[in-house]
């Protein structure tokens, strides 16, 4: 545990923006993308990444935190304070989520807004790694809470189709789209044409086209984010490019914290 920055940064208006990294479908590389964008943004901003996929958490495996006892589950279950679940890793503050079924059962997803509100006081950028489904209330909640979403797509029909659904959900809940990120792109795919055609339907911009890479799997095996394990890879460069395209909007952190605390979401699910 460490001294929580929230208590040291209360008298100045800091900017903070909350992004949900989302895709309606699994396997698109959301966690890899969240951590890669986080690390790239961390060269300029104070970044906090939160694994909000409470049912299928995996960020802890990507960040060497698999033995961690206190995670978002415990915070959402009311057994730990937020600062107890924050870990400084790879230049970011990481809030992993546990993988136990008991932890999932005891977690109250609506407490997430309080977590985000608390963290908002001491960071510039919050990235929420979202669940790969739109089927439950807790899976959609990060998209509702975020200012903007980054949609991670594979260049396949089901993935793009699900990405369109995510976008419409976000817009319905008043969340903007920062852009789309094509991931796991293979060499034989005419990705430029696809990206151009897809751009007609998606808000925001095409942030990057990240090539499929063995380095991504190797990073996962090494329990490290891609940018820590293979910083010189083409995939890492593409993520840095994507982060460069994301202009973080200024917002008063106190106002943001208040917004989350006052979000019109009842506590009973």
């Amino acid at each position, binding site marked *: 545990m460490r001294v929580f920055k929230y208590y040291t940064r209360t008298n100045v208006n800091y900017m903070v923006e909350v992004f949900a990294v989302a895709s309606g*479908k*699994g*396997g*698109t590389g959301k966690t890899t993308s969240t951590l890669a964008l986080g690390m790239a943004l961390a060269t300029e901003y104070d970044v906090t990444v939160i694994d909000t996929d409470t049912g299928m958490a995996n960020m802890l495996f990507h960040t060497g935190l698999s033995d961690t006892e206190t995670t978002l589950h415990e915070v959402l279950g009311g057994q730990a304070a937020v600062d107890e679940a924050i870990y400084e890793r790879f230049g970011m503050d990481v809030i992993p989520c546990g993988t136990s079924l008991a932890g999932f059962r005891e977690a109250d997803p609506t407490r997430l807004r309080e977590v985000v509100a608390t963290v908002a006081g001491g960071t510039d950028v919050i990235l929420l790694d979202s669940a790969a*489904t739109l089927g439950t*209330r807790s899976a*959609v909640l990060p998209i*509702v809470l975020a200012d903007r979403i980054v949609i991670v797509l*594979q*260049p*396949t*029909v*089901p*993935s*793009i*189709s699900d990405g*369109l*659904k995510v*976008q*419409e*959900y976000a*817009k*319905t*809940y*008043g969340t903007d789209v920062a852009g789309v990120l094509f991931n*796991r792109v*293979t060499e*034989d*795919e*005419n*990705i430029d*044409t*696809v990206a151009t*055609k*897809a751009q*007609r*339907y998606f808000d925001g911009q095409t942030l990057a086209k990240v090539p*499929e890479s063995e380095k991504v799997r190797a990073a996962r095996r090494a329990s490290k984010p891609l940018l820590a394990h293979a910083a010189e890879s083409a995939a890492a460069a593409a993520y840095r490019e994507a982060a460069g395209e994301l202009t973080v909007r200024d917002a008063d952190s106190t106002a943001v914290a208040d917004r989350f605390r006052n*979000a*019109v*979401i*009842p506590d009973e*699910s």
Partner: protein
Amino acid sequence: MNLPQGELIRRRVLEDAGTVLRTAFERELTGFARLESQDTLLLDADGVGVLTFEDGIPVAAYHTGTDAAGTEAVTDIGSTGPYRLELYELDGEITEQIHGDERLRVPPALPAQQLSGETELVDQIRERAPETWQETASDTSLDAVEQFLDDEQKVEAIRDHARTEAQSRADEWNFPTDQT
């Protein structure tokens, strides 16, 4: 595409059509998968996607709701999950007749590329597929994606449906929306 019933070997509801391809490939199935969309508001309510296999390799595709065949049928299957899946085994002689119809044929790896995005499965199918099959249709993997993106009506239908669904869930889940 007229298919006899065949022997049912699997029936389940699944989110990802890629699972069908993986199962058929691993079982080296000769037969077909019947993928019935659970989303009756999209396309035709009776729309059923059919993918046929020979020794686990995808050969032909058809969609009963849109009457699309071949690559286009794969696109229609891809945009309408989750599915109720039924996997059937058929006598090789029967599938041979269907597979003679060039209109229905798809490049062997295309359904895996489009429906699963699993590069490992795509490579495995390519490796196992007979060379002559690879030549029967142009193996441009993104054709189906481009066709999908060119079909504005279909894309708009998906967006409209998602908006309606998001709004109705907002009411159900008590989420604030731009409209409330």
